[in-house]
């Protein structure tokens, strides 16, 4: 983990200086390289040690045995009163020494976490970033699944691909228009149930009098989901950020409950079984997507690439600029003639339609029931977007890859029941280090820097919370 950064080498001062200014009274002390032993006994250093030891104990408990409610503290005690604890304490102390003595680690962390400041001019007008890099990424995406097991491929469709698509859609709402939507999965459900309605006579008690190929449902679901977005958004988009969040959350929950409880319409908790797979019968081509995940993967990949290109154009257009204006200063945007409500509604509708689109894909791929549309799923998509980097198309896709990849990786690594302990820890750690997300968009990154400096809002939800500026 520490790599070549051996403690004991003086840190290059220049690279830390930009951030030190903001650190308040504590800052100057850190600039002075304090690897002489006396520095270790300062209160701040001792407190660090305490924190690290606590973290070590916590790590021991997390990886320790499982307990039960009859003896609530026994499992924790067994974890701590175990020889293993020595390992964790040693790690804690070693970490402390590294932190206390090695300036490099900090320098590295700072360099890694401090956004590179490029002049706007350099960024402006460059369309879609370096083409070579994008093509390389695409090539990786094309080759990657062939290197993995079928189970991993399956997950690259169900977990990564679908969520990447959903995150791209939600990114329009959260990242572009700056609106927090906590019920985004509802549109996914609308897409999925629309598919079941139109393509199968048996999947749900309620079905169309005719049967369509799932491909024809794409436009229908797209429009229906967009319509649902408008119907939900028109009355609620006047609400301020947090109210919008709770209303959308309520909407998501209502759709989920309706899907689950309206047995006579949606087949309730039993779900919709028997939606046909996608198939093409055109110009002599007969192809059906089956159980094998790979064809679905490439279809999804193609769709994701198209959506990314489309949204890239949108972002750089009049519409994207207007969204940026709304995010940065809604009143000024309105005064400059930007129809803020209509543009927010547009973002809502576009986001919803992508979600509906993904719903068709999901429904035609496999069986689903209302569990797929829970509130947690909505939260998860928001997490993907923020984690990857709001407003960045590549970012949210990377977010889906990393987060969903993590759940898959943890599947084999730790007891499934404990998976989300690690998952939660990674998310918190990530947010502490890189709140702007893994691959923040240039524009958002500038906004965040400015909001740090106290100019403008980083999102339409208002400025950073109280106390954000030391």
């Amino acid at each position, binding site marked *: 983990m520490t790599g070549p950064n051996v403690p004991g080498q003086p840190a290059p001062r220049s690279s830390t200086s930009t951030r030190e200014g903001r650190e308040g009274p504590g800052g100057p002390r850190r600039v002075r390289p304090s690897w002489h032993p006396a520095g270790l006994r300062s209160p701040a250093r001792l407190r660090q040690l305490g924190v690290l030891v606590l973290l070590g104990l916590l790590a021991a*408990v997390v990886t320790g045995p*499982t*307990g*039960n*409610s009859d003896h*609530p*503290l026994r*499992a*924790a005690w067994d974890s701590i009163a175990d020889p293993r604890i020595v390992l964790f304490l040693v790690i804690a102390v070693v970490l402390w020494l590294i932190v206390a003595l090695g300036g490099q680690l900090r320098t590295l962390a700072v360099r890694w976490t401090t956004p590179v400041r490029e002049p706007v001019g350099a960024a402006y007008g460059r369309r879609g970033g370096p083409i070579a890099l994008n093509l390389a990424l695409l090539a990786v995406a094309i080759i990657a699944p062939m290197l993995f097991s079928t189970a991993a491929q399956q997950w690259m469709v169900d977990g990564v691909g679908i969520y990447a698509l959903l995150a791209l859609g939600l990114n329009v709402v959260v990242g572009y228009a700056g609106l*927090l939507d906590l019920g985004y999965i509802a549109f996914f459900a609308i897409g999925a149930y629309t598919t079941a309605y139109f393509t199968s006579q048996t999947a749900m008690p309620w079905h169309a009098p005719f049967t369509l190929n799932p491909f024809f449902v794409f436009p229908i679901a797209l429009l229906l989901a967009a319509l649902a977005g408008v119907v939900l958004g028109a009355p*609620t988009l*006047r*609400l301020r950020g*947090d*109210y919008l*969040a*709770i*209303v959308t*959350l*309520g*909407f998501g*929950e*209502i759709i989920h*409950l*309706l899907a*689950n*409880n309206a047995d006579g319409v949606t087949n309730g908790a039993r779900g919709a079984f028997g939606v046909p797979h996608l198939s093409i019968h055109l110009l002599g081509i007969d192809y059906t997507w089956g159980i094998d995940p790979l064809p679905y993967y490439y279809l999804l990949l193609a769709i994701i690439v198209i959506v990314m290109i489309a949204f890239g154009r949108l972002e750089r257009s009049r519409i994207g600029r207007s969204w940026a204006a709304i995010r940065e200063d809604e009143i000024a945007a309105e005064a400059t003639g930007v129809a803020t409500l209509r543009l927010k509604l547009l973002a809502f509708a576009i986001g919803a339609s992508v979600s509906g689109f993904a719903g068709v894909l999901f429904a035609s791929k496999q069986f689903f029931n209302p569990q797929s549309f829970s*509130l947690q799923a909505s*939260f998860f998509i*928001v*997490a993907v977007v*923020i984690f990857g980097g709001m407003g960045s198309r590549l970012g949210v896709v990377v977010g889906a890859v990393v987060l969903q990849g993590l759940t898959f990786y943890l599947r084999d690594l730790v007891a499934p*029941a*404990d*998976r*989300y*302990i690690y998952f*939660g820890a*990674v*998310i*918190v750690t*990530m*947010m*502490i280090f890189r*709140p*702007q997300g893994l691959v923040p968009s240039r524009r958002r990154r500038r906004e*965040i820097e400015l*909001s*740090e400096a106290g100019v403008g809002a*980083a*999102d339409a939800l*208002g*400025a*950073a*919370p*109280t*106390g*954000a*500026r*030391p």
Partner: protein
Amino acid sequence: MGFFDQFWQLTIDGLMVGSLYAVIALGYTLVYGVLQLINFAHSEVFMLGSFGGLFAARALLPDGGVPGGFQSVYLVAVGLAVGALCGALAAFTLERVAYRPLRRRSAPRLAYLISAIGASLFAVNLAGKEFGRQNVDLPDLFHNDTVFTLFGADVSTQSLVIFAVAIAMLVGLDRLVAGTRLGQGIRAVAQDADTAVLMGVNVERIIIVTFVVGGLLAGAGGFLYAMTFNASYSMGFVPGVKAFTAAVLGGIGNVRGAMLGGLLLGLVESYGGYLFQASYKDVIAFLVLVAILMIRPSGLLGERLGRAA
């Protein structure tokens, strides 16, 4: 079977649950008032407080039979106190780990939300690992008899205890915010943090205190909740969402609004569950919320902690 025959019973049921929503909602509202951020991990503070109070009360519970008299009061008091302490500790830790570092970095608001979700996942699943994934029952701490009847509806000791303690906490908090120096500080930060700093208010301290106070209430509320509804590692989410809804309903950032919103939500659920198929009661609760927000976009009593008192 008529609704009006059961009206008062449903009212009492609703008020009991509603007062618990109100107690949890205060945590959301306080933090929102001061930080303008939704503390999504508050539900886990509630869960941890609930476990703490439950384990403490259970450890002191004598074998065999339901205790009575003074012993019951003592057990409930211990449960409340330990629950509150655990809640406060959890809230404090949460602030230190999941929020403060982000404040130092001036993270965008949504990052706090994700950090909270991460912390929430961590806490829930760690609790599940440590305490098992079963619901845990708290044996009766007192004889749960009907104390009196109100318009033909039975009022049990339990609902009375819950309601009384909850209301006492709500009133106490209201006084704290309205009438003390500390409350003044909280209101000052809520109104304008920058000015508060200039006036010599220690914003960091106020933030910590806000979290701790919210945690105390949620922890004690968690113990009350566990008395009736058992405790489990995943217990926080649903009442958390409900309480948040209640806070918004009353006007987030507004202490009295949270109380009103909580009680109202409890009643709506109680009546709605009776009048329609019970599975639609959450749908009804959310529809009421949306309807009210359409009519009064800033909640029933309006926003701003500063104006609450």
